[in-house]
């Protein structure tokens, strides 16, 4: 690990200013992903701004009938929250489908959103990876691509966004609230938060340098039945090959987002009305333009079957 300096500011604005004003600085929240990457020298911050003392660790009701989740609410606390379990079950289910108990106790809401890919070539510093080292090439293309992306990828990168929580946030139409070093705030719809790689796969999301996530906002509850169905190589503690976050209404109206398929949670709202009558046609629309590899083309029919399983449960 490269040497770094460390500080613990007291407010979100101070934290944002500290990162913005120091070249090579990064925020540190739970650290479960960042420290792992620092040990491998994939991340080499020169200064860490530990945000644990800045507040933002509560879940509050909003005037609009939704909830506002502090950036530093742990995965465990969020999944266990009574309102979340009752009104946003898909979110609780997605969180407890990911990582381990130890990691969920430490990992935060904001940190989970900006965790980096688990593409094996991103982690192997002997291999070419445009996400880790821009311009070095992509060893995943033509390599071991079974766990990797089938849609939204590019000729520069086929890595997936690895998380579960954000897939649930996508069906719930969450938004991400931030503060910048100059004190200005903005709200980013979750659909726009993660970037597609294009020819700049080293940039995972739309956050600017020194821009700090302060909250994740959920609109009023949708009702319906909530599902998070995760298909993976082990029954527990593994990343998704395919995951399905779905909210299905009594009349069969379906919202669905897929994990493990793309560089961001994958949802195509325009295809959702057709899901009730002709699932195959709707799925073809959702995955139109997919460019799977020989090794991962199984993910597309697997996604349809995973959704079929969920809709069958919704009817029962």
């Amino acid at each position, binding site marked *: *690990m490269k*040497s*770094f*300096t*460390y500080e*613990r500011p007291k407010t979100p604005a101070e934290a944002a200013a500290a990162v913005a004003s120091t070249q090579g600085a990064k925020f*540190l929240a739970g*650290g*479960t992903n960042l*420290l*792992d990457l620092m*040990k491998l020298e994939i991340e080499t911050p020169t200064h*860490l701004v*530990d945000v*644990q003392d800045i507040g933002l660790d509560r879940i509050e009701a909003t005037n609009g009938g939704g909830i506002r989740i502090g950036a530093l609410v742990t995965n*465990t606390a969020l*999944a*266990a929250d009574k309102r979340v*379990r*009752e009104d946003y*079950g898909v979110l*609780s*289910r997605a969180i*407890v*489908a990911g*990582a*381990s*108990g*130890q*990691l969920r*106790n*430490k990992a935060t809401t904001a940190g989970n959103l900006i965790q980096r890919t688990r593409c094996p070539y991103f982690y192997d510093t002997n291999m070419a990876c445009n996400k880790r080292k821009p311009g070095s090439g992509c060893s995943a293309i033509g390599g071991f691509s079974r766990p990797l992306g089938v849609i939204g990828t590019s000729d520069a990168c086929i890595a997936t966004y690895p998380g579960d929580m954000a897939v649930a946030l996508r069906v719930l139409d969450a938004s991400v609230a931030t503060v910048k070093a100059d004190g200005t705030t903005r709200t980013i719809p979750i659909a726009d938060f993660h970037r597609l790689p294009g020819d700049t796969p080293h940039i995972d999301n739309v956050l600017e340098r020194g821009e700090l996530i302060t909250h994740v906002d959920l609109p009023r509850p949708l009702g319906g039945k*909530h599902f998070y169905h995760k298909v993976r190589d*082990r*029954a*527990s*503690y593994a990343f998704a090959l395919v995951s399905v976050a779905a909210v299905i209404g009594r009349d069969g109206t379906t919202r669905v987002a897929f994990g493990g398929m793309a560089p961001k949670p994958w949802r195509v709202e325009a295809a959702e009305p057709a899901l009730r009558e002709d699932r195959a046609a709707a799925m073809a629309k959702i995955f139109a333009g997919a460019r799977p590899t020989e090794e991962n083309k199984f993910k597309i029919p697997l996604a349809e079957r995973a959704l079929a399983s969920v809709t069958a449960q919704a009817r029962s």
Partner: protein
Amino acid sequence: MIGVGDLAISRRGVLASGTAAIAITSLPAGAQEPMPGKPPATMPVAFEVNGKGVELTLDTRTTLLDALREHLKLTGTKKGCDHGQCGACTVLVNGQRINSCLSLALQHHGDKVTTIEGLGTPDKLHPMQAAFIKHDGYQCGYCTPGQICSAVAVLEEIKAGVPSHVQGDITARPKAGNLEMRERMSGNLCRCGAYSNIADAMADVAGVRA
């Protein structure tokens, strides 16, 4: 005359002195002679370990795990993968289990840390330690301190109503059962495969049938 006691050596002592010798020979040249460039940053940190306050000045890179093992000589907590995948380093911080390898010591300023040494002693075992012995919940024992710390926390998490992936109804209160224990312990690997006995030990402590 040399008494038997003078010759008594423990495996721990041999390992510790061996490690020290290796550590000295593997220090980078810069540790002995001034090298160009800045020395690694260090900072003071204070936290409580097993009920005792400790103050250390550490290289900022020091993980909680290395602070416990290398600086405080609490070697009960084990380093397995050092990447949060195996759970051997599991300790309790403010009552919650975490991977001590994926946390900087500096992040724990002011925290209360409990390691396997703080759960029980050979004379006064924690009920979970006693249950692991009774149910033969280990073979080589390397993962055991992490398993026990995790198991203690799992039963607390179930009591506190923290949901899990295997619950049919996410809004219901979880119950300590075999499936729940196995799911919640998935962050602790045991290459000897003592899992079924670990689940038995946990069920015994929880007062349920495995």
